[in-house]
């Protein structure tokens, strides 16, 4: 194709997402200012601002002729002085890549004066999609942090200690999701958690070697799990992203059977009762949507299929289409299970598809806002990048409580269609001040 309106980003944003949430890590984008401002904006508007960590190398237009190696060296020194990170990740963007800057050479040269680990990841826009940047960056970070452990013969693994891979602290509801995930694993499975990638410190990443098991949520970060298996003999499992009750229980049972541990059935029943009680409290609303909604799901592979599973098997929705905007290594096997699913490349095609289906609800991100408006359907924001909502509270869309949030969001966004209908009518009557404000 010669013309694409992309639904996903290039490797660079994958790298940014891999370092988002690592508390004492800094990311230097070695490229032009546009390659820095976009990722900084995305990161700071979707994740914790305490740990925003995207820095510009300062590459100037005049250096596009002479090369930016000296500039990068200076940037690394400055970042070390100002932020005192434990790890610096340098992502080279298109301009540095085309110029052929020797980033590894700069890192080698500076390693004696900058006393923290530095890694380089090629993130040129033309060299691949977002998900490859995420996978490669995560492996490189873990590999670098665990370098010193590699020469050891054995590791003391702690029984029933697990690590989580594939959690993104830049998704909507990320704070609540993190908490809910930890609560469920601790309360129902009584496991210890070494580290949740990537909401952790560098030191916590090194604890990953003590894990008994790595749990890969929805398939994101599978390369890290593979790396840990090969180099540290740590077992891993890929579980569905715990969206909805069935996916959550599947995750719990997968971990329990792999570790050979019992499930705290009392706790599990308590969680299930919690959901049941709420549904009873709002029964007619839930009945209103049950088996009665035609929807489209757009999003990352790791979450979209889990959401589809929940909506289909627990709410009897008609899933008219699943458009995968960013894939991972398990996407192909998931695609086989869903006949109306495909990997998206072009927003134009997605647009045409949704207009043709004319669903009642689109599950997506801020970037689907206009499609939903033009189709006259509700939009439930559940995935990255959601930039027009702020998620400060501990609401979650994972686990048992998450099922309630998703039902609530769906009902409220559908109810909100009345407001949109009124707005459309007022616009038609030319009687709204909205465009003036």
């Amino acid at each position, binding site marked *: 194709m*010669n*013309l*694409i*309106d*992309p*639904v*996903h*980003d*290039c*490797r*660079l*944003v994958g790298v940014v997402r891999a370092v988002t949430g690592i508390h004492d890590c800094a990311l230097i984008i070695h*490229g*032009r*200012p*546009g*390659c820095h*401002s*976009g990722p*900084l*904006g*995305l990161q*700071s*508007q979707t994740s914790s*601002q*305490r*740990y*925003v960590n*995207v*820095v*510009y190398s*300062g590459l*100037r237009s005049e250096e596009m002729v002479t090369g930016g190696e000296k*500039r990068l*060296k*200076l*940037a690394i020194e*400055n970042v070390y002085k*100002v*932020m005192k990170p434990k790890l610096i990740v340098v992502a080279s*963007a*298109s*301009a540095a890549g*085309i*110029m052929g800057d020797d980033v590894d050479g700069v890192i080698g040269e500076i390693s004696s004066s900058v006393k923290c680990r530095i890694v380089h990841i090629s993130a040129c*826009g*033309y*060299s691949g999609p977002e998900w490859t940047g995420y996978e490669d960056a995560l492996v490189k970070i873990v590999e670098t942090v665990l370098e010193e452990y590699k020469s050891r013969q054995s590791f003391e693994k702690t029984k029933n200690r697990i690590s989580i891979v594939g959690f993104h602290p830049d998704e909507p509801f990320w704070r609540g999701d993190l908490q809910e995930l930890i609560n469920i694993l601790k309360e129902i499975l009584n496991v210890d958690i070494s580290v949740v990638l990537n909401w952790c410190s560098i030191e916590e990443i090194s604890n990953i070697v003590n894990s008994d098991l790595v749990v890969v949520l929805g398939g994101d970060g599978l390369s890290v799990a593979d790396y840990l298996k090969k180099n540290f003999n740590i077992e891993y499992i890929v579980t569905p992203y715990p969206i909805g009750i069935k996916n959550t229980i599947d995750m719990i049972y997968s971990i329990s059977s792999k570790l050979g541990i019992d499930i705290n059935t009392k706790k599990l029943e308590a969680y299930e009762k919690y959901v049941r009680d709420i549904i009873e409290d709002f029964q007619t609303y839930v009945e209103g949507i049950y088996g009665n909604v035609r929807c489209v799901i757009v999003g990352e592979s790791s979450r979209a299929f889990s959401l589809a599973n929940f909506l289909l098997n627990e709410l009897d929705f008609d899933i008219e289409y699943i458009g995968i905007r960013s894939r991972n290594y398990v996407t192909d096997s998931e695609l086989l299970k869903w006949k109306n699913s495909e990997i998206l490349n072009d*927003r*134009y095609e997605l647009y*045409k598809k949704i207009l043709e289906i004319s669903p009642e609800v689109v599950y997506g991100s*801020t*970037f689907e*806002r*206009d499609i939903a408006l033009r189709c006259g359907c509700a939009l439930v924001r559940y995935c990255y990048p959601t*930039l*027009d909502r*702020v998620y400060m509270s501990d609401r979650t869309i994972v686990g048992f409580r998450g099922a309630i949030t998703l039902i609530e969001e769906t009902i409220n966004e559908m109810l909100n269609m009345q407001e949109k209908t009124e707005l459309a009518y007022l616009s038609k009557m030319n009687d709204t001040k909205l*465009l003036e*404000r």
Partner: protein
Amino acid sequence: MKIINIPYVSEIASKITEAFPFHNAACIDGKILGALWAIYQIRNVLPIIHGPIGCSWQRKFALMGSEIHYWTPCTAWSETEVVYGGEEKLYKAIVEAYEKFKPKMIVVLTTCASDMVGDDVEYVVDRARKVVKCPIVYSTGDKVGKTRQVGSQDVLYSIVEQYVVPNCENVEIEDGTVNLMTIGGEYSRSIVTELEGVLKAAGLRVNKIYFEDREVEELLELAKVRVNVVPYYQVWARYLSDVKGVRDFVLINFEEYDLEKAYPLGYEAAINKIFEICKLANVEPDEKSLERFYKPMLDRFEKIKRRVSGLKVCIENDWGTCMLFALKLGLKIEALVFWTEQYRGHGYSESSIKMMIDGYVQYLRQYGQDPEVIVDEKFENVIDKIKRRNIDLVITGWWSKPFKYHKNGVVAISSRNLKLFFEFGLTPLINAGEVLIKKIEKGIPTNPVVDIEINEKLPYLSKRWGELTLLFHLNRYEKPE
């Protein structure tokens, strides 16, 4: 498929993101974002970004506000184009774009990748113009020098150069007419609210307000009037003046230390500007009508002035608008606080920062003000000095934090709330005056919920944003060995 670019940004929604220290603080946008801002102002114009997908996807959202650029098709460069060039791909993409979207105009935007590889975009566009039935414009970012914002300036210049000028040979200039510009981008359209009314009162005909939601054909009318009134210097407007004799008139001059000449705020400044525009448009201003127009506003302004005159204020990290506001309302400027890193971010050297501060002080002295100048002091010292001088109110800088003053028992308001930047006339002073009165009446919140660790070196920012801002400036401006 119909292209619908949404040119409007909600002022209410924008409030939520105004405090992000982006613009020349922790980052600066690339040219593509500015270019998209300009393109999104005009109906049915389709951008084609000639480069990798990241240059397109990342630019779907503006840094401020929840504005989304839904349509940003691109040529999706892979390593093949980096090696062999992307000219053929661009040609096919333009043809495909026209077939798919039937836009009224296509604007090709080059990126670092296509610029560095050296694609001959002009040649490709010329070829495509022969088969595509809509105007095609290309913008490389090279035509406007360093005039900010490069992206939007270059797109507008390219549109005027490649579409307006070649197509306006038969357009007759009408005496007494003007166009007004809000200029696409993050800045408000309120700059033209009072201006439009007062120009009409003076006897001029306002032809159109650009570029907000204009049709492509309407762009030709940029060459139809005597004067194009632009908020700040626009390369395209000067070009049109040079080649077609349509004069450009600039409202805001950032280079000026004489604040009255820099910003068109207040009655006198407004009247002066109107007289100058009338002169350029060959119209004798209707002074009586102007008087009638301003009479109720002046009455309201005087009433506000009486309420606040004599209040002791401290102004922090200002660019001149708050000082001018204070002078016009008869406030007593007791102190000026500067944390100079903010100015360094805009490329100011040590000497130019000093010159700027001295310039402000000298200007204020002409009006009998003698503020204490506090430069890069620790925040605790600033608070001490403010308290010692019994200051009634602090007007903080754009990104600065009123809550940190509140916590120390000092009334403070952010200059963001006063909305004095990119404004014209008396209305912004009246509005800001009313906001100020409300703040004074409200006083200090008893228990402010916000409590963020402040960066020691850059006390106008939080710890992490301060680090990122400092690094942005260091990495950008420090010279490597």
